C-alpha cells in the first residue's frame, strides 16, 4: 500500500504518507477481512495466532546475526514505521529462541534522499557492519542508487517500493507493489464497474506521470479513451478540478485519483458538494486507503469510491494479522497499526523463516542471500497470494490485490483479491509465467 507521490514539496508527501500510516490505526473496522484474503488461513476472532520465529519463549544469546536496512527519514517523509515494525518482530523472535539460539541484530540507516549518502550507507552496512541481509529497505531512492551495488555484492534485498526501479532488478523484491501497479489496480476496478472512459488525475510532481502510466496503458488496452491531468499540490481549486475531471470523463466515465489523502480528499469532498458522485465511477490508488479518508467521507460515498489496497486490512482476522497486532502492542506501541508497519512485519517474517531453515554453518552472507533468493511460496494472510523471491530479472511478487471502499466512515472490502493485469510494459506476463515454471507461489 506504499503508493506514494514522489513530491517536490516534501511536506505534502510527508503529510500524505503519514496520514496513510496512522489513519488505518483508527479504523474501527466493521468486518474488515470477510475471508477475502486468499492464501492465508481464515479464522474468526480469538482464533489462531501465529508465533514469532521458533516461538519457544527462550531468550536468544550468543553472536548476533546482523541484518540491515536503509530507510528514508527526512522532514516530510518518514518510512521508519516499516523498519520499526521489522525491529519489533525481530525483538519478538529474539525472545523466542532467535535464529536457532542466536539473536538478530538489526541495523537501520536513515537517509535523506541524498544519493551519495544512500550509496555510502549501503557500503557501510555491507562492508563495515558486515550485515548478512538487507531487509525492510524503504527509500525514495535506494532502488535506483544501489541496485547495481547490491547486484555486485550478491545481496538480495527484501523491501518496500515507491520507485519503479524496485521492480526491475534481479536483486530487489518488495512486499508491496508500488504506485504504478496500484494505480493500474484502481483503473481495473473502475473498468470492471463498466467505465467507458478513464480520466486519471495525479499530482504534478517529479515522476507524477510515470507513476500512473500502467493505469493509462491498461485502459487503452481495453480500448477505452483516457485522459491524464496533472495538478499542482497543494490543491487550491478542488471544486474546479472535480468538475473538470467529471466533465472530461463524460457519461459512463470514471475518474481515478493518484493523490495523497489530504489532497485527494479535497477533490472527492468537492465532488460531493457539487453532487458529482454519481456522474462517474470513482477510483483511487492505495494512499486513499486511509482512516482519515474513511472518516471524512459521508454516507453518500458509501461503496462508491474504489480504493486499491495492496495488503490486508489491519483489522483482518488471519493468524499473521493477529500476531502483527500483538507484536505491535507489546514491542512497538508507539508505531501506528497501518500498512507501513504491516509491510515491515511481513518483510521481517519472511526473512526470519528463511534464516530458521538454514544450518548454522550457512549463516553467512552468501548462504543467507542464497536462501532469500530461494524463498518460494511464503504464505501469509496479510497478502493475497504467497510471496516469493525466485530467480527473475524483475520482481513484482505482490501482484494480486483487493479493492476497499468507505462505508459509514469505515474502510471495508469492496472487491476480493484480483490479479493486476499483464500489460506489454509491466512485465507481469513474464513474471506469472515464471511463477508457474519455477513453482514460486503455486505449491
Amino acid at each position, binding site marked *: 500500500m506504499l503508493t506514494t507521490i514522489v513530491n517536490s514539496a516534501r*511536506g505534502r508527501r510527508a503529510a500524505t504518507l503519514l496520514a496513510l500510516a496512522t489513519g488505518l490505526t483508527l479504523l474501527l473496522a466493521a468486518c474488515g477481512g470477510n475471508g477475502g484474503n486468499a492464501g492465508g488461513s481464515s479464522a474468526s476472532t480469538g482464533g489462531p495466532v501465529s508465533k514469532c520465529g521458533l516461538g519457544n519463549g527462550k531468550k536468544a544469546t550468543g553472536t548476533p546475526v546482523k541484518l540491515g536496512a536503509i530507510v528514508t527519514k527526512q522532514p516530510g517523509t518518514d518510512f521508519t514505521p516499516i523498519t520499526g515494525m521489522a525491529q519489533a518482530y525481530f525483538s519478538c523472535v529474539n525472545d523466542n529462541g532467535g535464529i536457532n539460539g542466536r539473536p538478530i541484530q538489526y541495523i537501520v540507516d536513515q537517509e535523506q534522499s541524498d544519493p551519495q549518502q544512500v550509496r555510502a550507507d549501503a557500503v557501510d552496512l555491507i562492508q563495515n557492519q558486515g550485515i548478512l541481509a538487507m531487509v525492510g529497505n524503504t527509500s525514495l531512492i535506494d532502488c535506483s542508487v544501489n541496485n547495481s551495488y547490491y547486484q555486485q555484492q550478491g545481496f538480495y534485498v527484501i523491501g518496500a517500493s515507491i520507485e519503479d526501479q524496485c521492480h526491475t532488478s534481479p536483486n530487489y523484491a518488495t512486499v508491496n507493489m508500488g504506485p504504478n501497479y496500484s494505480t493500474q489496480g484502481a483503473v481495473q476496478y473502475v473498468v470492471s464497474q463498466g467505465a467507458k472512459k478513464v480520466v486519471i488525475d495525479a499530482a*504534478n510532481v517529479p515522476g507524477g506521470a510515470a507513476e500512473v502510466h500502467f493505469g493509462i496503458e491498461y485502459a487503452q488496452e481495453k480500448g477505452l479513451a483516457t485522459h491524464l491531468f496533472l495538478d499542482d499540490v497543494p490543491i487550491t481549486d478542488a*471544486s474546479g478540478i472535480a468538475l473538470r475531471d467529471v466533465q472530461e470523463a463524460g457519461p459512463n466515465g470514471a475518474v481515478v485519483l493518484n493523490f495523497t489523502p489530504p489532497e485527494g480528499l479535497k477533490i472527492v469532498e468537492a465532488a460531493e458538494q457539487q453532487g458529482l458522485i454519481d456522474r462517474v465511477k470513482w477510483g483511487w490508488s492505495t494512499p486513499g486507503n486511509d482512516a482519515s479518508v474513511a472518516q471524512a467521507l459521508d454516507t453518500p460515498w458509501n461503496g462508491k469510491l474504489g480504493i486499491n489496497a495492496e495488503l490486508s486490512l489491519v483489522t483482518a482476522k488471519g493468524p499473521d494479522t493477529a500476531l502483527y497486532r500483538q507484536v505491535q502492542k507489546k514491542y512497538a506501541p508507539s508505531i501506528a497499526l497501518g500498512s507501513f508497519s504491516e509491510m515491515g512485519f511481513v518483510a521481517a517474517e519472511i526473512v526470519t523463516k528463511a534464516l530458521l531453515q538454514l544450518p548454522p554453518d550457512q549463516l553467512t552472507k552468501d548462504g543467507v542471500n542464497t536462501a532469500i533468493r530461494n524463498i518460494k511460496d511464503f504464505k501469509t494472510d496479510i497478502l493475497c497470494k504467497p510471496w516469493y523471491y525466485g530467480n527473475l530479472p524483475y520482481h513484482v511478487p505482490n501482484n494480486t490485490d483487493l479493492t476497499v471502499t468507505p462505508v459509514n466512515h469505515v474502510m471495508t472490502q469492496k472487491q476480493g483479491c484480483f490479479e493486476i493485469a499483464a500489460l506489454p510494459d509491466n512485465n507481469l506476463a513474464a513474471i506469472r509465467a515464471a511463477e508457474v515454471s519455477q513453482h514460486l507461489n503455486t505449491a
Partner: protein
Amino acid sequence: MLGLALGGVFAVSGVGMVVLYRATGVLNLAYGAIGALGSLIAWSMINVFLLPDWLSYLVAVVFGGVASLLYGLLIGPPLAGRDPLVKAVGTLGFLLILLGVMDWVWTDKAHALILPTTQWGFQVSEVTVNVTQILAVGLAVVITAVTEVFLRVTRLGAAMRALANDREATAMLGVPVRRVEAAAWLGSGLIAGATGLLLSTLVGLDAVTLTFLVIAALSAALVARLQSLPVTLVAGFVIGVLQSLVTPFSLVSSYRSITPFVVAIVALLWFARRRPVVLR
C-alpha cells in the same frame, strides 16, 4: 479569489518584514521559521497537552513576538552598526537554529493545524471560498492599514520612520532607539506568529516549507524596495493572482510556482539598472 488568498499570504509576510527592515535595517529571513515554530507549539498544545484551541493560537502569536524580540535584544545591538547584509546573514543563523529545533523536537512527523475558520465556507459560482482564505486577505489589508496609520500618527511610529532614515541622527534627537527597535521586533514577530497560523492552514504545517516560504514572500517586499507597505500589499496580491492566472496554460503551468521569484528578480534588476559607484 484563490490568487488573492495566496497573494494575501505573500503580502502579510512582506508587510511584517518591511516594518522591521524600516525600523532596524534588519531583513529578518528567519521570519517564516518563527511563524512555523509558533504553529508547531500551538499544534502540541492542542494535540498533546489538550489545551483549548484559542489559548494555543494566542500562544503561537505571542511566541512569534517573543522569539523575534529576544533575537532583536540579544543579536540586534551588536550588529546594529554593520552592513544590512551582515544583519541579514545573522538572521539566517537564527533561521537554521529554529529549523534545527523544529526538526529535533517535532521530528519529521506530519502535523496538521486547521483553523476552525477553514470549515466555514461558501460558494462563489463554482468555487468554494473558506473563511481562512478571506482572513488571509483581510489580515493583509488590515495589518497594512493599521501599521501605516501607526507609523504616520503615533510618536513611536514617527520615531520608527525616522530610524529608517538615519539611526545616528535619530538617536541624537533623543529618540530611545533601542526601545523603538524592540517595539519593531515585537510587532513584526507578532505578525509572523499570526501569519504562521494562517499559512499552516492554507499551505500545511511543515517546518521546512513554512520556513522557506519566506523566500517567495520576500518578492512582494522587494517590489516595494523594502520600503512601502501599501506597495508591498498590492505587489503581494498581484503576484498571487499572477501565479493563479498562469495555471490554465499547461505549457507553463508546472513552472507557475516560480512566479514570485521571477517577479523579485525582475524588480531587483529594475531598481538596480542605474547604480552609482559606492563611495565611502
